[in-house]
């Protein structure tokens, strides 16, 4: 599936999810759905990054066979392997942040059910002072939790931006590999094909990260 297809499914998925959530929990439910989608996209990027690693390894062997004519290509292939590793590590860090977000949002979903129950209790016993104290305490906890989620949200966005910058570097490496492939003498065609694949895959990752940055979770339209 392409990133574009993913994006359209993403929008449709959000819309479809809203009616099954209760009014009070729909915001958290929508957030949870968006987080799940982000996580799926991250898994996809990790998988593609691993593919770059294997491709770069093969490219290094190819460059060795091409000899002096592909020395530059070999260096770039090696850099692409490092890029692949850095990208996967960055994505794993994102996954950990996602885990923290899921934990916080899940608590909100559970608490929203209890909020409804307490609201009904307050209607049934409107003059109960202690119940109002409990409601105020819960409200304060909700505020603290909202602050934590906002902080995690900002952290996740920054980490995605970092990953996007890393992918820009990967794009430069792939384009440079294309140029170096042209000097590959008898191997130029093979090296050109490999560098073209690098370029395509980096473009795919860039597209995934762009869709993540446009996620409704960060206030975007996707």
């Amino acid at each position, binding site marked *: 599936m392409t990133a574009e297809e993913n994006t359209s499914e993403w929008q449709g998925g959000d819309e479809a999810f809203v009616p099954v959530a209760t009014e009070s929990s729909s915001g958290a439910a929508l957030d949870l759905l968006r987080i799940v989608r982000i996580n799926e996209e991250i898994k996809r990027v990790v998988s593609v990054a691993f593919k770059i690693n294997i491709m770069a390894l093969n490219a290094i062997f190819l460059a060795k066979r091409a000899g002096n004519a592909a020395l530059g290509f070999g260096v770039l292939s090696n850099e692409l392997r490092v890029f692949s590793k850095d990208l996967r590590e960055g994505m794993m860090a994102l996954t950990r942040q996602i885990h923290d977000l899921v934990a916080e949002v899940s608590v909100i979903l559970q608490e929203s059910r209890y909020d409804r129950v307490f609201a009904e209790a307050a209607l*049934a016993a409107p003059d109960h002072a*202690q*119940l109002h104290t409990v409601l105020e305490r819960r409200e304060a906890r909700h505020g603290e939790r909202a602050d934590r989620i906002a902080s995690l949200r900002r952290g996740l966005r920054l980490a995605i931006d970092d990953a996007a910058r890393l992918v820009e570097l990967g794009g430069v490496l792939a384009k440079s590999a294309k140029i170096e492939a042209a000097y590959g003498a008898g191997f130029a065609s093979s090296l050109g094909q490999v560098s073209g694949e690098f370029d395509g895959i980096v473009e795919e990752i860039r597209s995934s990260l762009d869709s993540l940055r446009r996620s409704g979770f960060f206030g975007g339209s996707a």
Partner: protein
Amino acid sequence: MKTTQTIFEDGGHKWTAIVRDPAKPEFLIDTNEYLVQHGGQGLLLDPGGSEIFPAVFSALSSEFDPSKIAGIFASHQDPDIVSSLALWLEFNPQMKCHVSWLWGSFIPHFGGKGDTFVPLPDEGAVIPLAGLQLQAIPAHYLHSSGNLHLYDRQARILFSGDVGAALLPAEKQGLFVEDFSSHIRFAEGFHRRWMGSNEAKRQWCERVSHLEIDMLCPQHGAIYQGADVQRFINWFDELHVGVLRS
């Protein structure tokens, strides 16, 4: 909203039944909650599911300060028994939940922390309440594999959880059993299906026959009192349980 009815009172020692909510949705099973008060403290027996918390809370708080509830007794682990735990803990986070050791790591999924739970051993235990000694009585496999009832020797009341439960029709909502033979028809199918062990049932009947009981208070249905208590024990003793259909 549920109503409260005092079923025993002797000075500061009191049993209150919290029962019958006309506004309860039909898809939720009706439950009885009981509050034992002694020395200004309360023990709430099978406080119910989270969905009925508003009804139980408003009824109870009209009678008693919820922050004075020192503990909860959960006869077993079912959601209609104790899924409201987290809500009650909001009023007193130090509140203890007395429950079979078997469910000590299951019920925390409803709420509470490690020190919330007081595990009850299989043979039962004394649960103190401001000087009153309440006795947790084994009722394992009736229906839950870790199941206890609560006996108050002074009040001569046995809280019997699901044993004695009856699924009553809308026109029979009295708090006490009035005509045993007609009432027990509403209990028969429940007991045949939900009680899983004839041997456990036999042992329970033998055990409670030695207790002085004026009232047998189930979590569903009506309370047995006087001669109906022994009638019920005899009926249950002869009932073949652990079958899909009667």
